[in-house]
């Protein structure tokens, strides 16, 4: 057990560093590459606007103006000027509220279904049948049940986020390497300690995958949930845009949802990479 051997082995595990360009280039080049495609789309859109059916769609310039007015006001000064924060705040509240509720129910339930055979036999078939029902198919029922208002939107978000979290939690618990149980048992671990020290940490990456997917679905579903019966929220704003034939408002709302969903995902990813440093994921 001499030091030389360890260093030899260490050297063989260290990856050979490729020639890396200077810092700013490494940062700027990917950003530039990522901008090429949207820039082309914008250019084509601007170029084509005013022709054919595109006449009824706002130009990128008009959307940019609307975005500014939506966020800060001072251009059109209508009912939507400077109201972005209200709509965004309402949507976020519903998304994170419904999502948190879903996580709170789905994670413990998933752990139980994954770990306890009787619970799995009792619940799994039902969930398998309920799962293929699209969340949007629940909308009419939830509108009748909860009435018009934010509750039905939150219940949709809950349903949308629930299944990905549940299924991934179950998967994580069920796919722990059996060798790890044996290793833990031989080291004196048993019973509830086995759950805390092996099952839970081993399932965490999968649970995080579920949370990531669930939050993505939550942002998809919120728009549908807000399209009827609520006065505020990004979905409501988009729907108003349709009623008023304001495509600049519709597109602005869509862009905000895209950005909000993107930022949400990055937050979960950052949390994942912070908590699970042994299992770093890349977005």
């Amino acid at each position, binding site marked *: 057990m001499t030091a030389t051997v360890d260093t030899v082995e260490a050297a063989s*595990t260290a990856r050979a560093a490729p020639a890396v360009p200077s810092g700013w280039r490494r940062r700027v080049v990917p950003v530039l590459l990522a901008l090429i495609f949207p820039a082309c789309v914008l250019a084509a859109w601007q170029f084509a606007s005013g022709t054919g059916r595109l006449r009824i769609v706002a130009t990128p310039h008009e959307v940019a103006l609307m975005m500014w007015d939506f966020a800060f006001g001072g251009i059109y000064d209508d009912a939507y000027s400077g109201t972005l924060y209200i709509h965004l705040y309402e949507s976020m509240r519903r998304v994170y509220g419904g999502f948190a509720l879903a996580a709170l129910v789905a994670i413990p339930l998933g752990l139980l279904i994954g770990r306890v055979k009787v619970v799995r036999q009792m619940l799994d078939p039902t969930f398998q049948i309920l799962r293929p029902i699209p969340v949007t198919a629940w909308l009419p029922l939830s509108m009748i049940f909860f009435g018009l208002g934010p509750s039905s939107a939150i219940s949709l978000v809950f349903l949308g986020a629930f299944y990905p979290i549940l299924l991934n939690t179950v998967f994580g618990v069920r796919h722990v390497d059996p060798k790890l149980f044996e290793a833990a048992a031989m080291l*004196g671990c048993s019973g509830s300690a086995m759950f805390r020290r092996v099952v839970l940490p081993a399932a965490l990456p999968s649970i995080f995958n579920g949370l990531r997917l669930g939050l993505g679905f939550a942002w998809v579903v919120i728009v549908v949930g807000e399209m009827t019966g609520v006065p505020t929220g990004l979905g409501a704003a988009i729907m108003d845009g349709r009623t008023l034939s304001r495509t600049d408002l519709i597109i602005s709302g869509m862009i905000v949802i895209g950005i909000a969903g993107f930022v949400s995902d990055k937050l979960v990813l950052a949390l994942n990479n912070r908590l699970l440093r042994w299992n770093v994921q890349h977005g």
Partner: protein
Amino acid sequence: MAEFGQLHVSNVSKEFTIGTQRVLALSHADLTVPRGEFVCLVGASGCGKTTLLRIIAGFEVATAGEVRVGKHLVTGPGPERGMVFQDYALFPWLTVRENVAFGPRERGVPKAEARERVDEFIHMVGLDAFADRHPHQLSGGMKQRVAIARVLANDSQLLLMDEPFGALDALTRERLQEELLEIWQRTKLTVLFVTHSMEEAVLLSDRVVVMTAGPGKIESDYRVALPRPRDVSSPEFNDIRRALSAKLTSHVAKRAAA
């Protein structure tokens, strides 16, 4: 350290049910390993050597017969019998240090004492500089060293090794064989080592137990009287290796002809 008697395997059989068929994986195995001895179980695949090891570890329950460690009857896995798996089975979410500390922590060893023991064994396997790494940042050889340290830190008296170096490249394997012998001589552990390499068995062990398949059973038990350190290229070493290999292949040939 916990008192450890000798390992007694008496009349152990194991039957598996595969579909509707019952397969006798191990038939009437008897084996006694005195304290401090290094024993290799060798045989072709299907001879039940891993099954026997897993029964001794307590991962499998014997269909008949019993395993005793000293006076204590084996009924399940226990810290006095530590297993080193071929594919390491380290906890990927724990660092090297935390992996090695898993056993002591689980058994409620006081923190300061545990820390000292853990550092001692990490040092013994030469991984001081890697103590805060996670398994995915280690090479195969390093992972297996962690697995060995993990068992040592847990006061295990019987080291069960299931083809531990089978997945390693030749150079790393040689190095780890040497290190294992050093550790064995230093700690006076009892080692039961499963391998399919006759050379590895003759190099490492005091005794080579040859097992044969169909049904799996212990065929012969051979004491390797060569002085240590052993030289794999010496004529004496090769005589023994050849004799034992012949024993194994003659049996395989007999079965193939039948």
